[in-house]
């Protein structure tokens, strides 16, 4: 029983413990709030947005355009066709999620599998897979994306594919490195000696060791992915013009710079803030999970 007391002393239970650990972690609250807002607005866009983002209203104000912060039924104003801009911004969050989430998911799964196989198999499998990975890494991602768009035409799934095709390689490289470190550790060697099949060794013993790296790399990559998606949308390679995507909105605002300065300004600010939030969060996660990875600051 004495042991139990010691445990209690070392780790006070209940809410206090949780609060203590949270304070120790120095959570980046502002980035987290921004990311939560992004997800909530994206998922609940239909309920939260006051208007339909693609519905035009030519009766507004007689001149079809309302500047922001003047008419509180349209807080962020409207665009040239009388579409409510706040609603378009909120639905833009959904578009960002719709492209980023599947692209990241596929890239993570594909990159992790290739990294695990490459690192564990070694020899020619490793050299072959890593040559391909290097070729993808060593090439500007926008060019790869444009090649895919040339072949498949524009559309949201083309953008997802393009983003995936340029993102998986980073995961493969990092995970392979982790596998190389972990495959020579005692518990893995013991598992091998006792005759555990390679698939199980990789899944049960090596993969769990790579999860930290995976999480850090994911949060650091999302910012890049959002920027690539926005660039492709801006270039008109994603959704159709008129649809609510932040990149498209900047492109449309470009045509109305005089007399509609906010049309290009607002979506750009939001993209910047979201990317910053992910970058800050990723930096924090890296420091929190693995102090060894900390860079000189």
């Amino acid at each position: 029983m004495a042991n139990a007391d010691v445990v209690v002393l070392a780790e006070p239970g209940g809410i206090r413990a949780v609060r203590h650990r949270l304070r120790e972690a120095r959570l980046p609250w502002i980035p987290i709030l921004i990311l939560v807002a992004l997800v909530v607005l994206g998922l609940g866009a239909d309920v939260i947005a006051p208007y339909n983002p693609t519905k035009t209203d030519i009766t507004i104000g007689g001149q079809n355009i309302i500047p922001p912060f003047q008419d509180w039924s349209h807080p962020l104003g409207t665009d040239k066709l009388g579409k409510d801009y706040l609603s378009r911004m909120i639905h833009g969050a959904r578009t960002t999620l719709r492209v980023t989430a599947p692209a990241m998911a596929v890239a993570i799964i594909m990159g992790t599998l290739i990294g695990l196989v490459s690192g564990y198999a070694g020899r020619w499998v490793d050299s072959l897979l890593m040559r391909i990975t290097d070729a993808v890494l060593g090439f500007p991602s926008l060019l790869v994306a444009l090649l895919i768009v040339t072949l498949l035409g524009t559309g949201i799934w083309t953008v997802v594919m393009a983003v995936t095709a340029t993102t998986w390689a980073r995961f493969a490289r990092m995970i392979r490195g982790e596998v190389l470190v972990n495959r020579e550790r005692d518990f893995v060697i013991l598992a091998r000696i006792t005759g555990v099949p390679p698939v199980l060794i990789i899944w049960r013993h090596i993969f769990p060791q790579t999860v930290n790296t995976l999480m850090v790399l994911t949060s650091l990559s999302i910012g890049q992915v959002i920027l690539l998606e926005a660039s492709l949308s801006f270039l008109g390679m994603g959704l159709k013009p008129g649809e609510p995507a932040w990149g498209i909105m900047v492109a449309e605002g470009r045509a109305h710079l005089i007399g509609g300065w906010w049309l290009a300004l607002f979506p750009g600010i939001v993209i910047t803030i979201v990317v910053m939030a992910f970058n800050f969060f990723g930096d924090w996660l890296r420091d929190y999970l693995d102090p060894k990875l900390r860079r000189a600051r």
Partner: protein
Amino acid sequence: MWAYILRRLCEGIITLIVLSFVVFGSVFLTGDVTTFLIPVSEDHDQKVYEAQKKAMGLDRPFIIQYGDFLGHALRLDFGNSFVIRQPVKDLLMERLSATVHLALAGLLLSVAFGVPLGILSAVKRDSAFDKITKAFAIFGMAAPQFWIAIMLILLFGAQLKLLPTFGRGEMEGWLPTLAQVPDMLYHLILPAFVLATSVTAAIMRLARSAMLEVLDTDYVKFAQVKGVHDRVVVWKHAARNALIPVLTFGGITMAGLLNGSVVVEVVFAWPGVGLLLFQAVTSRDYPMAEGAILLSGAAYIFTAILVDILYGYADPRIRVN
């Protein structure tokens, strides 16, 4: 050293061949080019289709077609553009100078600002100057380039009417005449600045962290203790070694320049390869897109090799490995 250069060159050529294979292979798999080349009125005619296919050599096996493509690609011959009906090679060569000018200007700007600012913010660590440059770096890496470009156009073009916001003026080809120089620089300011933002931010952060590490070494501390003037210690003793990692990442940041150049050229209507590639992609002009992608790819790969070779000179330890 020569063995090292040779090895890097071979690797570069192999990457380029893989790239050409992927580009050609994916076009081969997804699109039947023949249908693009037949007049619409004869679209349904099977005989015309077969004849066109045979005339273009598109009925041959994949590998032979690829070999043919590669042979022509080595001479930069990608056939005629579907849209403009001129040889892709001529169109590319016409535009190359504009892209190279822009990339050089962008690189120059980002090194000229990134390196000294990074070094200074390491020396004046945690000062107000350090915090301001850090904020700029965070912003530069998160803000989309196309948006920065449009905001600058809004400010300097539409509102202040200070700077030209599209094209490269009366400039054509590689070298400006003396009279063209002011106009050329005038048109370069905005696009080069936008192209440089993210690269400047990256170089700045890199130079700063490398400099912090070097400032912590014994030889720098010894120089300081010995009474060498601060300026000499920073710029001569420390900066030289801090710049080695900056140089390595130079190759990687070049990717940023190439990525950015498509977007920047589109926004500023800069008549370069990036704009041509964009137009080719939107009109699904296969030969044009193949040519532009392979040319950009080759430029990227050989820049990276050049950087590696320079790095080999700067840091002899690299050559051994």
